């Protein structure tokens, strides 16, 4: 085992050579090994924001161009303007991504490709005579996009492909299950909530799986949307009096406290913040649903207020005691 002095001396030497940064040491101190490259990737400068805004404007430009000239443009031109430009943007993005200096510009082109490609596929299928609007065509388009980005990820191993893979995979999951179920009355509107529950759980587990790998930059966003979807679906499954589902209403506080407990274990502020917000929403919901009639609204508001103060205190307590300052 290396002694403390040796470790500190090594750190000093590496720092003198500019091979290690303070952020890397601090991240190692928190139990997460994050490389310098990852930390640099996580920083979003003004230039990066401008790249993304530029990418989004290009997307809107293409969409408005096709919409305004829908009657004038013939089918090949529409396909070329949308699917063609998205394919071109995809290859330009790959070209830029190969060079370190233009890597971030490559991300902007990836954004253009991923936003325009679904529209391009829609228009291509529409012009080919497919009936649009049904879940089957959505399942087909999302499956194509999922396959394209899965292959891209397997070839290039870049996080951006994994990110779009998760988005298109989610779309595929929702559209494909809709296609299977159709309007089958056995699966009513709660089917949407169950799918949202599963999606939220999947995002959270994937976020955890990526947390100690070089896919770590995706963890925060997966945790955030995962908990948001999972608790949101659980809350909606509870319903509202007189059509409430008692089992979900009773289970919900348990789920919220499990999320708050996990926030400590995972050191995740997303878990803590979203969990606390849902706890507050639940307090308001339950009080107004069951106690506003018997206790009256003024007393109910007093109870809601006190419980919200308690939730806020819980949030601050957990954050100060268990969360690393720079996480």
């Amino acid at each position, binding site marked *: 085992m290396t002694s403390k002095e040796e470790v500190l001396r090594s750190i000093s030497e590496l720092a003198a050579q500019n091979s290690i940064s303070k952020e890397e040491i601090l991240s190692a101190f928190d139990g997460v090994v994050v490389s310098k490259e990852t930390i640099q990737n996580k920083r979003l400068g003004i230039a990066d924001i401008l790249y993304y805004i530029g990418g989004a404007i290009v997307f809107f430009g293409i969409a408005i161009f096709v919409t305004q000239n829908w009657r004038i443009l013939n089918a090949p031109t529409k396909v070329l303007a949308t699917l063609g430009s998205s394919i071109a943007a995809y290859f330009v993005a790959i070209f830029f991504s190969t060079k370190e200096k233009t890597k971030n510009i490559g991300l902007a082109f990836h954004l253009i490709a991923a936003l325009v490609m679904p529209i391009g596929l829609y228009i291509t299928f529409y012009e080919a005579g497919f009936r649009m609007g*049904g879940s089957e065509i959505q399942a087909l388009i999302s499956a194509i996009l999922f396959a394209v980005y899965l292959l891209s990820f397997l070839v290039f191993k870049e996080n951006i492909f994994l990110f779009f893979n998760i988005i298109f995979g989610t779309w595929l999951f*929702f*559209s494909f299950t*809709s296609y299977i179920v159709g*309007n089958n*009355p*056995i699966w*009513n509107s709660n*089917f949407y909530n169950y799918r949202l529950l599963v999606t939220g759980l999947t995002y959270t587990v994937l976020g955890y799986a990526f947390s100690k790998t070089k896919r770590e930059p995706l963890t925060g966003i997966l945790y955030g949307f995962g908990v948001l979807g999972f608790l949101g679906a659980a809350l909606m499954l509870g319903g509202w009096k007189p059509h409430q589902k008692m089992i979900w209403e009773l289970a919900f506080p348990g789920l919220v406290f499990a999320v708050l407990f996990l926030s400590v274990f995972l050191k995740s502020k997303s878990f803590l913040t979203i969990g606390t917000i849902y706890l507050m929403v639940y307090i308001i919901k339950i009080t107004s649903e069951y106690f506003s009639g018997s206790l009256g609204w003024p007393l109910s508001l007093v109870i809601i207020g006190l419980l919200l103060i308690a939730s806020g205190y819980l949030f601050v307590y957990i954050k100060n005691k268990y969360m690393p300052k720079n996480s």
Partner: protein
Amino acid sequence: MNIKNNLPLIFGISIPILMVIFVTASIYIPQMFVKPQYDFLYLIGNNNCYNEGRNSQVYAVVSNRLIKYTPDTIFQNCMIGQVPQLKIFVYSIAQNEGKEISFSDAQGLILDSSILSPDGFEIVNGGSNGGFFPFYFSSGSDYYTRYLQGHNISKKLNIQQGGNYYYNFTLLGWIKK
């Protein structure tokens, strides 16, 4: 690939796949074991006859037999005004399709006009998947599809309605054996 290290990843990917398998199985497996037995008689077209301020059914089941409830003279007036074409069908559960029959043939059938069939099935409209933007999925014209539902199964019926109006379909009765 180290399975132990990638357990969370495998678990995460498995969750939606398992749900797809579960949903598919919940739809198709019960259909293999629960078999509806009773064919049924149904109408396509508007069975309501509105004439001179009075509204009545064109066809009805009385004492387990199909009758033309509206007298022919009034029915002719309805036909001019609103009813496009009334057709009577027998739906074969075994073949999963409807076959048009004449009124005189239909009169020979013994019918049970209950909502529930003798073996506990009913005909219901398709539901909605729910959801909100961007994850809302309609199934287009499929919304007016009829399903045979009961005993935790739901089977899609191949009924050509000649238009997507819910009142185009009228169940007259379950055919008694």
